[in-house]
């Protein structure tokens, strides 16, 4: 053991605690740890971290401080986080997690005892090591900024999770103004504004061709339109007639100018310069059946349903007209209201829009942490890139 890495003992001790926590979780698979609501969530996260900071500042050279700040403890805690959260990366946890995951105590990894133990270990290790090294000098400064940023982001994220309010709701065009919604945890809450959906708009890309070769699908490259041409799998396809909005009546597409109507194209297909098929294509949709074109060699040509290009909701917030789109939420009094989705079966004919209102009071702390982390890693990046010494 004489050449064992320094600081390995606390890591081994943590590993024992982690495995113990895992055994407890396996024995009691229904055990779920959740942070309490605000303000107790802050107490639950800031208190252990504050103790760690105090220990690192007041007793920087004590054996326990050195143990809690060791690099190997950081590795052990991070590996603990990885070991307890990996099921989320592999299985659709919460939807169809395999039964054996529950049996090994990882049916709900994020509220499991081993995950919480590992995350607490990371936070305490960060706090103690940060406090020990809070001295000036370029190297120490880089270390301090990165670790302080990470610590603040982790505390903000963990504590903020306890006080986070999230409520999903649906608005229908022409509905009456409303500000009462049901949060994720079942509580009834009031939004700071009453919302009315005036109009939901979905703009779509023109459709593309789809070739079905015995179940193997190949997509064309051209967005279809009047006189469009495309080549795929040895076929040359040209559009002869184009209906931008159509419905199928008696097996033939006819112009039908209604929201949600899909386009139709009369195409001619050539292979080796010879015409092999011609006919109408129309994707299946809420307003009509599909028209596909069977080819002589057993393949079938389809028109793919047009893909969404942009969707937006024109709403009135307390009578004031605003536009909410993906990537541009409505922000009111600490709340952010996001446009998530719509009735995808109806597409552009959808008269409803799905929103999510989120109040996250800890967000400034998380962003402060992320900002510090970014500054710190940029400083770290500068060093290896600009160092001129020959490796």
């Amino acid at each position, binding site marked *: 053991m004489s050449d064992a890495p320094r600081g390995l003992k606390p890591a081994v001790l943590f590993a024992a605690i982690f495995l113990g926590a895992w055994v407890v979780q396996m024995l009691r698979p229904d055990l779920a740890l959740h942070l309490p609501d605000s303000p107790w969530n802050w107490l639950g996260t800031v208190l252990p971290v504050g103790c760690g900071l105090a220990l690192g500042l007041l007793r920087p050279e004590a054996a326990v401080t050195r143990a809690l700040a060791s690099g*190997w403890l950081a590795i052990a805690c991070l590996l603990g986080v*990885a070991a307890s*959260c990996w099921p989320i990366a*592999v299985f659709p946890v919460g939807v169809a997690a395999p039964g054996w995951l529950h049996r090994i105590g990882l049916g709900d990894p994020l509220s499991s005892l081993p995950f919480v133990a590992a995350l607490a270990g990371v936070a305490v290790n960060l706090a103690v090591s940060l406090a020990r090294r809070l001295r000036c000098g370029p190297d120490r400064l880089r270390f301090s900024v990165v670790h302080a940023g990470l610590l603040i982001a982790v505390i903000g994220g963990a504590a903020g999770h306890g006080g986070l309010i999230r409520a999903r709701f649906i608005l229908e065009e022409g509905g009456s103004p409303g500000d009462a919604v049901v949060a994720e945890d079942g509580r009834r809450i009031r939004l700071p504004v009453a919302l009315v959906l005036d109009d939901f708009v979905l703009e779509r890309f023109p459709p*593309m061709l789809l070739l079905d070769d015995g179940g193997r699908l190949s*997509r064309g490259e051209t967005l279809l339109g009047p006189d469009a041409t495309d080549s795929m799998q040895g076929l040359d396809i040209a559009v002869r007639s184009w209906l931008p909005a159509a419905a199928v009546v008696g097996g033939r597409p006819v112009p039908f100018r209604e929201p949600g109507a899909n386009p139709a194209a009369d195409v001619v297909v050539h292979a080796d310069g010879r015409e092999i098929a011609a006919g109408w294509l129309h994707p299946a949709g809420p307003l009509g059946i599909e028209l596909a074109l069977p080819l002589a060699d057993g393949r079938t040509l389809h028109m793919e349903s047009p*893909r969404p*290009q942009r969707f937006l909701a024109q709403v009135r917030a307390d009578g004031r007209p605003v536009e909410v*789109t993906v990537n541009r939420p409505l922000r009111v009094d600490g709340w952010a209201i996001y446009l998530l989705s719509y009735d995808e079966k109806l597409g552009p004919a959808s008269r409803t829009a799905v929103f999510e209102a989120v109040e996250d009071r800890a967000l400034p702390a998380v962003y402060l942490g992320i900002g510090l982390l970014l500054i710190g890693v940029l400083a770290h990046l500068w060093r290896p890139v600009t160092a001129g010494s020959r490796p």
Partner: protein
Amino acid sequence: MSGVVWWVELLVVACWSLAAICASLAAARAGAWHTACRAATALGLCLLGGLLLWLWLHLGRPPLRTLGETRLWYAMLSVTAGGILAWRLGTTALRLPMLILGTLFLCLNLAMPQTLDKTLMPALQSPWFVPHVVDYLLSYAVLGLSAAVALWRLLRRGTDVELPFRLIHAGLPLLTIGLCLGAIWAKEAWGHYWAWDPKETWALLTWITYVCVIHAERDLRSRPRLALGVIAGSFLVVLMCWFLVNHLPSTAVSVHTYTKG
């Protein structure tokens, strides 16, 4: 369009293969081979940069949506980043790994020709899209170089770990920046800066892997063979996060499914 892309990729592969041969010969005899290597590398880079610019203009969107498009960027960034780092660090040891990595990823595209189209889903139409994805690809390129150098030295029974660690010290900050940019973008688009989506979780596992390598650096340096093995093996997690996650059952609930294809 995909036909043009395929032929340009083939030309770049030819340029960089030639550059790799020149680089091997330059190891024995300096002079003209060095110049030929630089010229062939630069020609390949110009062709690939021109192709990406043409695709961007022609598609009317950043060519960063599909796996095939990200491989094009990866090839360009691994050779560009390798060249800059080799110049800054004053080493020629990166020349072959960067050319091999770039060529390998272009060969993947040649073997699996992609279809290109102009569609871009609404969530990706954000100013965060390009910086987030390009930064991630740059970090993958630098970490890929570290793994390639480590693997090369491991196979040749080398024990010098300085360069692979230097590369990780450059790649990990880039990985962290990508993670932070992704979190800020996710908050803007969906209201969650961290939603434990499978792709996000793999990104965290990748970050944890390299943070652990950095924290163990001092001890690993005293066991160079183990260090080289760990550095080479760590890149498997990057590949998992980038490609292989799409083949896991968790992809059914992922909001990052647009990276398929």
